[in-house]
């Protein structure tokens, strides 16, 4: 169960609309390494995660990612407020606008709609936690790329906050992987899958 809090995790207060920026930042809502994919990945990986600390991290980071979806949506909402048709065309926002007006639709900057095709749930803690570590780094790179394209301090500020969260989440998933490996067979981490083999069995063919 979740409880909604009527506040952003970090303030978003953008003075100047900018259709061009909105059309790239939307990728961090519905793109391959975006926040919606992050929340979906972590919250669904929890059920097969055998260790309680790792379930805790997936639950709490997954919930934080929902707050990041809201921050990205707030950025897009404010960047596209009061745009004129001329500004929409000049900013290259016309292809988005024709289908969604200025509603918030989770898609990649390329226009590809949000898909779970870019996330993984493998049902094995080493595979899933390594997926999560990679996901945090990919999202961090996307934020670095956004910062390369953006010189508005009102936008850079919340984007820098979100970038920093990727670094912290990477650290915590690293902790979770270490705690997981501490409980596995130290001579062969892959001797069994504790999500499936109940921590006792062995892989077929070993």
């Amino acid at each position, binding site marked *: 169960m979740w409880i909604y809090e009527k506040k952003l995790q*970090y303030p978003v207060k953008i003075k100047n609309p900018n259709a061009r920026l909105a059309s790239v930042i939307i990728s961090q809502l519905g793109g391959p390494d975006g926040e919606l994919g992050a929340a979906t990945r972590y919250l669904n990986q929890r059920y097969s995660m055998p260790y309680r600390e790792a379930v805790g991290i997936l639950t709490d980071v997954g919930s934080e990612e929902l707050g990041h979806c809201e921050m990205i949506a707030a950025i897009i909402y404010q960047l596209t407020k009061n745009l004129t048709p001329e500004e929409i065309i000049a900013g290259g926002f016309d292809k988005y606008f024709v289908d969604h007006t200025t509603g918030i639709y989770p898609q990649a900057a390329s226009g590809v709609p949000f898909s779970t095709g870019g996330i993984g749930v493998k049902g094995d803690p080493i595979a899933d936690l390594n997926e999560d570590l990679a996901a945090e780094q990919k999202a961090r790179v996307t934020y670095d790329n956004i910062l390369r394209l953006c010189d508005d301090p009102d936008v850079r500020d919340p984007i820098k906050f979100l970038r920093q969260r990727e670094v912290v989440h990477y650290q915590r998933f690293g902790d979770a992987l270490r705690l997981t490996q501490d409980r596995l067979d130290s001579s062969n981490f892959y001797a069994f899958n504790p999500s499936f083999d109940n921590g006792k069995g062995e892989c077929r063919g070993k």
Partner: protein
Amino acid sequence: MSKNELMKKIQALSFALLETNLFLDTHVNNKEALDYYYDIKDKLGRLTEEYEENYGPITASGTVSDGEWSWVLEEWPWQSGAED
């Protein structure tokens, strides 16, 4: 405290609380982090109460009863733009 000042403090304390929560998830016996968590939680609780009494609810159940359901009448977080 003004609405914006109070909200900024609440956001900062909420952030400290979440950050400590994530740390504790993988360091469950860390005494320093546990003490810090409960210290921040107390401060956040007091400021949240002050905010909800004066400026409007942060959670639906924090809506102060004054004859109408202000939960939906106060602005939503993405609407507070640069003019504030």
